C-alpha cells in the first residue's frame, strides 16, 4: 500500500466509516449474530433467484442423520455478469458455510463464506481489481 493511501486517510476516512451497509433487506433482522453456524454438507439445490439466491445443502450429523439447510446469498445478476451460473455449484458438491442462523431457529443461514472441500473460497474477491477471484 502506497504512501498516498496513508496521506488520504485523514481526508476520506470519515466517509467510509459512516457509509451505510446497504442490502436489499436488513440481514440483522433475519439472522442472529449470537448464532454463528459452521455447516458442512453437499449441494442439494441452487436457486439463483431474485432478490437473493438460496443454496440448499444436506448436512449430515455424527449419527448419520441428514438435515436440509437453506443458505442465503446475493442477487445472481452480478454473478451472471462475471460469467458464473448455478452450474458452478452442481448437485452433490461438498461445501462448507460460515454464517449466522435464522432468528426463528429454522435451518436457514446467511452465507458469509462458502468454501469448497479443497479450501478454495467460492466467489471471493470480485470487486477489488487488486485481488484475484476464486482462490
Amino acid at each position, binding site marked *: 500500500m502506497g504512501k498516498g493511501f496513508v496521506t488520504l486517510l*485523514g*481526508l476520506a476516512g*470519515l466517509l467510509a466509516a459512516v457509509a451505510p451497509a446497504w442490502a*436489499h433487506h436488513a440481514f440483522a433482522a433475519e439472522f442472529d449474530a449470537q448464532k454463528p453456524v459452521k455447516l458442512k454438507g453437499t449441494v442439494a439445490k441452487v436457486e439463483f433467484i*431474485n432478490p*437473493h439466491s*438460496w443454496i440448499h445443502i444436506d448436512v449430515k450429523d455424527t449419527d448419520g442423520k441428514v438435515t436440509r439447510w437453506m443458505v442465503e446469498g446475493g442477487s445472481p445478476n452480478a454473478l451472471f455478469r462475471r*460469467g458464473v451460473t448455478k452450474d458452478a455449484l452442481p448437485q452433490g458438491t461438498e461445501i462448507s458455510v460460515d454464517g449466522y442462523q435464522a432468528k426463528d431457529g429454522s435451518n436457514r443461514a446467511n452465507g458469509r463464506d462458502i468454501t469448497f472441500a479443497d479450501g478454495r473460497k467460492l466467489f471471493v474477491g470480485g*470487486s477489488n481489481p487488486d485481488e484475484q477471484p476464486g482462490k
Partner: protein
Amino acid sequence: MTQRSLAIGNLWAAATVAALLIAGPVSSQQAKPSAKSFTPPRTPDGQPDMQGIWSNAILTPLERPADLKDKAFFTKEEASAYVKRTIEQNNKDKRDGSGTDADVARAYNDFWWDRGTGIAKTLRTSLIVDPLDGRIPALTPLAQNRAEQVKEARRLHPADGPEDRPVGERCILLNSAGPPMMPSAYNNNYQVVQTAQTFVILNEMVHDARVIPLDGRPHVPQNIRLWMGDSRGHWDGNTLVVDTTNFTNQTPFRGSGPNLHLTERFTRMDAETLLYEFTVDDPESFARPWTAAIPSVRTTGPILEYACNEGNYGMTGLLSAARAEEKKSSK
C-alpha cells in the same frame, strides 16, 4: 472457459472502466461539464440518441465527506487512494467484528456486490454540485418532524406485517431506480429506449420501466399520486429535461416529501458518457434546491431481470424472526 478465467476477464473490464472513470486532467473547466464539443448521434426522429445501456456504478459519494470541507476536487493521487480506501472499507470479505449485527449485515461475500471501481473523471469529491459545499441543504422542521414520525412508527411496529417494512424490502421500489436514480451496491444499470413520443428508462433495480411522454401533455391532477411520480420530458437543445411531480409520501429521497419537484437532465458528453443531472426542488423539505450529477458510463448488456417479488423469502424470514423474538421476550 473456467469460472475463474471468466471472473478475471470481468475484472479486466472493471479495471478498464475504472481507468476511464478516473482518467483525465483536473482543471477548473471540468467543474461544469460541457458537451459543446460533442455532437450526439441522432435517432431516425432527429432526437439526440441516448439509447443503449448505461451504468451508474460509481464510488463518488453523494455528499462531500465533512472532513474534506471546501475541497471540491481530488488530485489524481488522492482519487486513486480514495478509490482504494473505499473498496477496502466496502469489502465484505473482512472478518473483524464476528458475532455482531454489523457482521451479519455484511451478509455474503464481496463477489455478489457490484459497486463500481472508480470515481468520476472530473475528480469531484461529491455527486452534489450545488450547493458549493457538496452537502444536502438543511431539512426544514416539517421534514425533520416527518422523518421522526417514520422512525417512531418503525420503533413501535418494526415488523408487525410487511407494510411496516421499507418499500425496498417489499420489492415495490428500490432507491437506486428513483427517480432520481442513484448509484447503489448492485444492479446499477439502466437502458434507454426512445421513440418520437416517449423516452423510456428501464432500470435494472426491480426492473422498473419509466415511460416518459414527450408530447407536451400536462401532468395528471394533483390528487393522483404515483410511486415514481409523474414524469414529462422535453428537449432543451441536446439535453432531455424531465420534470417529475405527484410523488407519494412513501418514497422520500434524502428527506423529500410528496410535493417534491424533481428535474432530471440527460446529456450525451461523448461516445461513452451520458451525463445524468438532477435537481431536488422541495421548499417544504429543504432550505434550498440542490443538484447532483452522475456521469453514466456505457456498458454492455443485457439488462438482467430482477423479479424481486418472486423469490423474496427474506420477507417471510424477517417477519418470522420478529415473531420468534416477541415470543422470547414474552417468556
